[in-house]
């Protein structure tokens, strides 16, 4: 079902494109040797290059180029063997050079695509227009001093990838799913940590609305939105604002806006509008970036299996549903965890345990797959104990709870707590005999045709065995004994 907003004049479609700024994982900055770590003291990770002192010159960090190429390949995009760094000129307090070194006419990466899985099980393709490499600016803080803004240049010069999507997104949900998928791909590739709270991933959101079948109308750009939820909210409120404007006879101005999550509204950033003209031109301090086909081929050969391929393989090799496979591959650690649990075992059982009990336990204990108290080896062992009949399904749940608590191996716990399932026919027969003797009246009723009492006997036997009796054996033996 298409996502439409009902206005007074009928339904409206929304059109969204995202420009994601993803911080490249690297030790040093894009054009200087200063560190990139998060949370350092102000201006302590700043070189004279980053602070744009007179006479300072940029020299590019090889890893940043490699990471961008890797990302481009992960987005199934064209890698341009020749690209050019250009200066984007504007004044701002946290932009020391008075220009940002970016790429304009000749970006490093051309067209690609992202397959986006939606909640209703459908998937859709969002086109990537380009990816280019650029410097981040510093940080202005406006709330630390009564009359001044404070400038910290630690971020200044950190490498960013700007990933520009086509306006292929048609709902807040699709935007959210796209961002999550993009983040998943970047994390698989190890090119961006995707941490939106620390600002490693930010989005500029282009929103317009239109009636079905129309050409695109004027769009507004909502700058610097820093969470998936806010992106989705911002799209919704901005679309509604534009619809209201159109329906009350107004027009939408192409402008830059800011999303205020507290008020749930977007507002115009008039300061940014005033006479913007970036005067891009090729940076004369840098030469064109020329890559050899070999350089690209080597990176391509080292790419990990990405979520889409992994998902397909999980469906194909493990017989999972596309939905389950999709959930499992969102992050690489979960997928690897599942895979090592499932290897050589009943894969559906493995998927149920990972997605159900394990994810539930992680959720309730606030842990992640990387800090999971239950290792993949232990969970595999638990499944083995179920399969070989050592543990009943019920016992297994108890053992799992103990594993979460203690981090111990299931075999150890079974031993310690004596939780092993009883499969000794003689022992079970003894219990059955005791139960039948204690309930002679019920035995008589059963034998006179009250079949429903069978369940009662099962329950009594299981109870008497402390839950350890093998339910299958109990069934078989009870049936024959009750039959007389």
């Amino acid at each position, binding site marked *: 079902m298409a996502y439409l907003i009902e206005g007074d004049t009928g339904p409206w479609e929304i059109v969204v494109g995202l420009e994601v700024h993803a911080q490249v994982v690297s030790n040093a900055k894009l054009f200087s040797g200063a560190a990139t770590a998060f949370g350092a003291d102000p201006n302590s990770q700043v070189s004279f290059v980053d602070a744009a*002192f*007179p*006479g300072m010159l940029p020299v590019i960090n090889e890893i940043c180029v490699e990471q961008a190429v890797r990302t481009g390949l992960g987005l199934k995009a064209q890698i341009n063997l020749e690209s050019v760094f250009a*200066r984007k*000129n504007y004044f701002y307090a946290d932009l020391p050079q008075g220009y940002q070194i970016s790429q304009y006419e000749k970006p490093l990466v051309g067209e690609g695509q992202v397959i986006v899985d939606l909640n209703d099980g459908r998937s859709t393709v969002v086109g990537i227009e380009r990816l280019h490499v650029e410097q981040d600016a510093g940080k202005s803080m406006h709330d630390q001093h009564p009359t001044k803004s404070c400038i910290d240049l630690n971020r200044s010069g950190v490498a960013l990838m700007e990933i520009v999507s086509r306006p292929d997104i048609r709902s807040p949900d699709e935007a959210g799913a796209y961002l999550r998928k993009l983040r998943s791909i970047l994390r698989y590739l190890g090119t961006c940590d995707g941490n939106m709270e620390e600002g490693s991933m930010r989005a500029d959101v282009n929103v317009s609305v239109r009636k079905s079948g129309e050409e695109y109308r004027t769009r507004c750009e909502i700058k610097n939105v820093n969470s998936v939820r806010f992106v989705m909210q911002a799209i919704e409120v901005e679309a509604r604002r534009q619809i209201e404007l159109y329906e009350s006879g107004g027009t939408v101005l192409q402008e830059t806006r800011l999303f205020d999550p507290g008020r749930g509204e977007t507002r115009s950033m008039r300061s940014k509008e005033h006479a913007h003209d970036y*005067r*891009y031109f090729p940076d*004369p*301090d840098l030469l064109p970036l020329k890559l050899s086909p070999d350089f690209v081929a080597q990176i391509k050969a080292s790419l990990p299996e990405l979520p889409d391929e992994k998902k397909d393989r999980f469906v194909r090799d493990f017989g999972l549903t596309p939905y389950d496979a999709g959930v499992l591959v969102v992050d690489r650690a979960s997928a690897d965890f599942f895979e090592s649990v499932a290897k050589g075992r009943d894969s559906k059982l493995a998927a149920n345990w990972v997605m159900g009990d394990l994810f539930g336990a992680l959720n309730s204990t606030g842990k992640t797959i990387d800090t999971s108290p239950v290792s993949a080896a232990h969970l595999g062992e638990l499944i083995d104990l179920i399969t070989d009949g050592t543990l009943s399904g019920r016992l297994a749940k108890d053992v799992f709870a103990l594993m979460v608590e203690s981090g111990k191996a299931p075999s150890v716990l079974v031993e310690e707590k004596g939780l092993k399932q009883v499969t000794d026919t003689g022992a079970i027969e003894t219990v059955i005999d005791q139960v039948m003797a204690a309930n002679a009246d019920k035995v008589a009723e059963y034998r006179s045709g009250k079949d429903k009492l069978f369940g009662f006997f099962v329950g009594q036997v299981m109870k008497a065995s402390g839950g350890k009796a093998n339910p299958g054996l109990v069934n078989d033996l009870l049936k024959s004994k009750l039959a007389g």
Partner: protein
Amino acid sequence: MSDVTRLTMTEALALLNKGEVTSVDLTKAHLAGMESARNLNAYITETPEKALAMAGESDKRRKAGQTGLLEGIPLAIKDLFCTEGVQTTAGSHILEGFKPAYESSVTTNLWNQGAVMLGKANLDEFAMGSSNMTSYYGAVKNPWKRQGDDRDLVPGGSSGGSAAAVAACLAMGATGTDTGGSIRQPAAFCGIVGIKPTYGRCSRFGIVAFASSLDQAGPMTRTVADAALMLKAMAGHDPKDSTSAPQSVPDFTKSVGASIKGLKVGVPKEYKPDGLSAEIIGAWDKGLAWLKEAGAEIVEVSLPHTKYALATYYIVAPAEASSNLARYDGVRFGLRVPGNSLDEMYMKTRAEGFGREVKRRILIGTYVLSAGYYDAYYAKAQKLRTLIASDFRQAFERADVLLTPTAPTPAFGLGENLDDPITMYLNDVFTIPTSLAGLPGLSLPVGLSSDGLPLGLQLIGRPFDEETVFKAAHVMETAAQFKRWEAR
């Protein structure tokens, strides 16, 4: 010892080696000279304490048998090179008081070779000018005057302080930078030798940028041999400058005195515009005759796009400058004029901090890059640059080196040519094409005008072929017997 400041570097090094003079002696003599010639305004900042300390260290090294190429030689440093702990102004109010915590690569190379810094030489503001009149720290006077005329003349620019200091023996040599002629034209005006090497030969790291694709450092000295020696000390690949050439530096001094038999010297026919003075043409012909006499062959070459070089330059250079000078914003260093808002602070700081010519170029540069005009101006100029560079490539298929005048006139009076920027820009008509093509260009004095002012000729070489330029220059120098002491 008579006046040691009159020695060439080569002569001074011989005396130092023999122990007849020390670096401290040389340095003291220069410091005394600087003090008595302050009226020239060649230096913005004198660093006598640092100079003596460096000279003392040099003498110790020499005693210990460690001698660099320029061991103990006192130099002036154009105030466009960042020098650690020493005020670096670029001739601008906006950088007044700025003390870098770092050293430029070129000066680092010089100190590593034992040179001594006397002080920071005056220049046109941000190296934008051909007269040194745009310096916030005052105009520099040319040590030369017209015969029988006491009026002060300009030393040329932008490396005017460097040229005046070397000509007046206030330094044995000086660093210059050249974007469109800023080493060569003042060298010609002051009767000294100056070479802008091939773009990429000297690192730009730590040199205040004017136009990054054109800026290049070079030596300014009193002889060709000294220029060869000093360039050798300054040059070299620098990983901190992405445009620095990964080439080894030849021993340029070996070219000095080498034969030029069979050398093909090109004469670009477009360098004789109508109205070029007979004196300049005369000097040029004389230069060609000397080369011919030494066994060179003279060939005519054509550089058809020459007439567009100046206009090309005055698009490219201001465009780059408008961006390079954006960092002077009153936030991290230099001048700040308070304002009620960030924008107001920027606008007041930059209005007060920059002089008229700098503002003019920033505005032109901003305009030619702005939306809707980029293609008509900037992109067009870059295409012209391609054509100009290819003219030279073709000319160098026929010739090994080109000989041209350095400037269309000798030094002019202080305060002249200020009314019309374009008239001033014409000073660089012969030097700018070389800069646009990134080629080495050397100016040397070949004689005096009828009113007693030095005239310079320019030798232009193939990329990274400074050696041929030095060879030819030395032949001409020997023939010219230029009387460089007329200045004092």
